[in-house]
């Protein structure tokens, strides 16, 4: 039993540390879509967070899904990354990275914890 003393102590310490992890707040997630009808899907446009390219869609929706995603679709961000959480119109302080694949560009990365991106088929 002596052999396990430090192991048990370590487990107890971990349990205490885990108990002090704050509960996950249920926060709203904001969805933006790439305006492909008025803008072309170039890498430069997709990487631009302005609402000329990324338009607000709504809260707590879903990302796009596609088997062979080739062009930008939707991004999801937390309230920390929108201009106004009550009436959001634009993304704020988000760095979107994109890659051109043929005539269209798709999103390859987005900064900030909690954010996510999705693409769709061409």
């Amino acid at each position, binding site marked *: 039993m002596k052999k396990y003393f*430090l192991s048990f102590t*370590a487990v107890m310490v971990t349990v205490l540390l885990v108990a002090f992890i704050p509960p*996950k707040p249920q926060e709203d997630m904001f969805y933006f879509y790439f305006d492909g009808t008025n803008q072309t899907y170039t890498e430069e446009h997709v990487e631009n967070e302005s609402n000329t390219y990324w338009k607000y869609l709504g809260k707590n929706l879903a990302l796009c899904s596609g088997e062979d995603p080739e062009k930008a679709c939707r991004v999801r961000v937390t309230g920390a990354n929108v201009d106004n959480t009550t009436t959001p119109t634009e993304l704020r302080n988000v760095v979107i990275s994109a890659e051109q694949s043929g005539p269209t560009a798709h999103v*390859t*990365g987005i900064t*900030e914890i909690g954010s996510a991106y999705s693409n769709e088929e061409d």
Partner: protein
Amino acid sequence: MKKALLIDAISALLLILFLYTGISKLMDYDKFHAVLSSSRLLSPASSILAWLLPLAEIIIALLLFFPHTRSTGLRISLFLLLALTGYLIFMIVYSPKLPCSCGGVLNKMGWKQHILFNLFFIALNLIAVGGSRIYELLNFLRRQGMPKT
């Protein structure tokens, strides 16, 4: 005896590290998965890695818990720490703006702080691996009835 205590103490510290980060990643799976998905290097395997990494950390913690598997646990934990540090260096070079996908309070660290933190644990891990080899060798010599060197 002192050497064995040092190895056990380092193993206990590594056990806390891996168990804590493994559990906190699973507790906030969605966030961890989202962060992995936003990494250019890891996004293709993000769904698998989001489960595999915390699971590997918990398995390492289990290996470190039992005295007869501790030596294996120390070697695997050294390998994982080196791999994670390699990933951190890659992120600093290629995507310094992306957030860290570390568990619990480690999320609050910056990339450079995190590398220093990892290097500290790698150093401890190396001491324990080296120490456990020497300890195993001494035990072997003792069983063979050879004098201690």
